[in-house]
């Protein structure tokens, strides 16, 4: 398919999407090249007394279009718990360059304080539209993936988590039966808390009912409900340290996910600031 034909096809494909804000139509009028970018990729950040989050971004164009070397430029957005944009930060990466951006430092520079929310990234090749077009020809639709690294300040326990969905997803439907079930088996030995950091990549608020079940038999041993604002993030906490009735293994369910791939990040906490976290 020729580039012009491909671009026309992209525009038609995108125009078919339902975008409540109408933002895409405005962008379309300004630059049709925008349609070769997925919506920004988003992941949860945590910045509180214990944790900082590092956004690990590399100039992936250098590796994926090596015949067109050059810098990349992009924007990080921090959204608060309620989904509102709190801060925008411009990123520039040399050819083959990478950076770990401390969200605590970003918040400090901007004079804001937000313990949990969504960080998004949109990265693009720097310089001319002609170079950008050459990149599109080779890559197709671009998704700006980045990795997030969560670090406990005192214990230096850490978790690195791969990127999740792009924002402005369609809302996830309520599921029947047991709902969505995590693939993780959660051992309770030494476990203090299970925390669920839930992103909402969709443009609609979501109420999610979580339950922890006995791995053998499915009996519910704890449950809670969380309201997550559109394009926001929040945390649900299960305190388990003093529970004497817990089985050896648990599993997690939710009656819905805010967006189709919007699984919560599952944090386990242990004595002495030890923690682990991963996709559920």
């Amino acid at each position, binding site marked *: 398919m020729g580039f012009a034909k491909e671009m026309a096809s992209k525009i038609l494909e995108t125009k078919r999407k339902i975008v409540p804000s109408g933002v895409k139509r405005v962008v379309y009028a300004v630059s049709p090249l925008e349609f070769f970018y997925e919506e920004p990729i988003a992941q949860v950040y945590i910045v509180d007394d214990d944790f900082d989050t*590092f956004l*690990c*971004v*590399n100039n*992936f164009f250098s*590796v*994926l*279009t*090596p*015949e067109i070397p050059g810098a990349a*430029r992009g924007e990080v957005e921090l959204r608060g718990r309620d989904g509102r944009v709190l801060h925008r930060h*411009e*990123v*520039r*990466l*040399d*050819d*083959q*360059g*990478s*950076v*770990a*951006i*401390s969200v605590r430092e970003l918040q400090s520079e901007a004079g804001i304080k937000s313990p949990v929310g969504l960080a998004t990234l949109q990265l693009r090749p720097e310089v001319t539209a002609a170079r950008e077009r050459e990149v599109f020809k*080779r*890559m*197709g*639709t*671009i*998704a700006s*993936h*980045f*990795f997030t*690294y969560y*670090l406990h300040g005192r*214990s*230096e*326990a*850490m*978790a*690195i988590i*791969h*990127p999740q969905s792009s924002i402005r997803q369609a809302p996830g439907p309520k599921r029947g039966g047991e709902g969505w079930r995590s*693939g*993780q*088996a959660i*051992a309770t*030995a*030494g*476990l203090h808390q299970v925390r669920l950091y839930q992103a909402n990549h969709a443009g609609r608020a979501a109420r999610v009912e979580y339950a922890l079940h006995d791995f053998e038999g499915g009996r519910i041993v704890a449950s809670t409900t969380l309201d997550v604002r559109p394009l926001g993030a929040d945390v649900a906490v299960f305190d388990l340290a003093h529970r004497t009735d817990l089985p050896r293994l648990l*599993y997690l369910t939710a009656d819905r996910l805010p967006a189709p791939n919007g699984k919560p990040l599952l944090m*386990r906490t*242990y*004595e*002495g600031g*030890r*923690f*682990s976290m*991963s*996709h559920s």
Partner: protein
Amino acid sequence: MKVPKERIWGFVVSTARHLGFRTRITLHNKSGVDVVAGLLVRDQDGERLVRVPGVAELASGSAKFFEVDELLRSVGLEPPEGEESVLNFHLIPKAHLDADGPVEIEKAEVFRILTAQDHYLEHYDPKTGFASGVLYQTPHVNDPLFFPKSSFLMQAPKVFLSEHRNTVAQVLFYSSDPDFSGTGDLHFGLRGGGGNLVVTWTETLPAHGVRFVDMKEVLARHGLDWKKVVDRHGFLFLEAASADHGFIPIMFNLNRTMHTFDMEHSLPPLYYGSKLTGPRKGEIIAAAVKALKAPVAAQVPAPRRSRP
């Protein structure tokens, strides 16, 4: 297509005993068909130790939990102290269980049941209970029955070094063909924030074996002091590529003092660009291998230019 039943749906894991951890596995079956899980255990060099045709039945919609050391003892193996075991699970649809030779199955059906679910691998510290894990699938790689050629590219910034912290790349040279043999080269490079290669090197793995690549050790081997290499956040960018073979990587970030760690898998190029498959993927990987095979004078990276 005709496929030996053991090659339809596999899942491979390695233990992490040399890091001081024990291992648990949860297999899931959301494929819509009932299966029997067989097990082939190998040592860290890929040598076969034991094969058991059925260690568990998984009805559709069910999950099965294993403590690896208990599982090994149940099949007659004593877990080796400080050395790794590689466990190859073969999930065989019950409809094909009694077949002696290859079974007839659509390629699309093979990929459907493989990708219907992730399985969960977890390591833990028995002294504190601390546990960390990762959900993933094992694709068909190094197996011409499914793809004429396999290749590999990892380009993700995941390395963090400090007094207490280190990064270790676990690499499995897996094949969905149990008779796959030989060795495979995987080319690595560490870059500073400014993009310059700090060091490149090659790891040679035996078929079906596992290696753990310790980033502080790699830097020391090349005469580099890690403290002089990392930026203020302890950050480096790791690249790895092979034009000839596929590998299964899992990155560990470790805190040796607290005895904690995390694990994460990687993302293929297709996640970044919708056209990055087939011949285009091959071109990218060839370029990456060329860059990583070029000799690099071990050097401290130039200052990072992260802000506009």
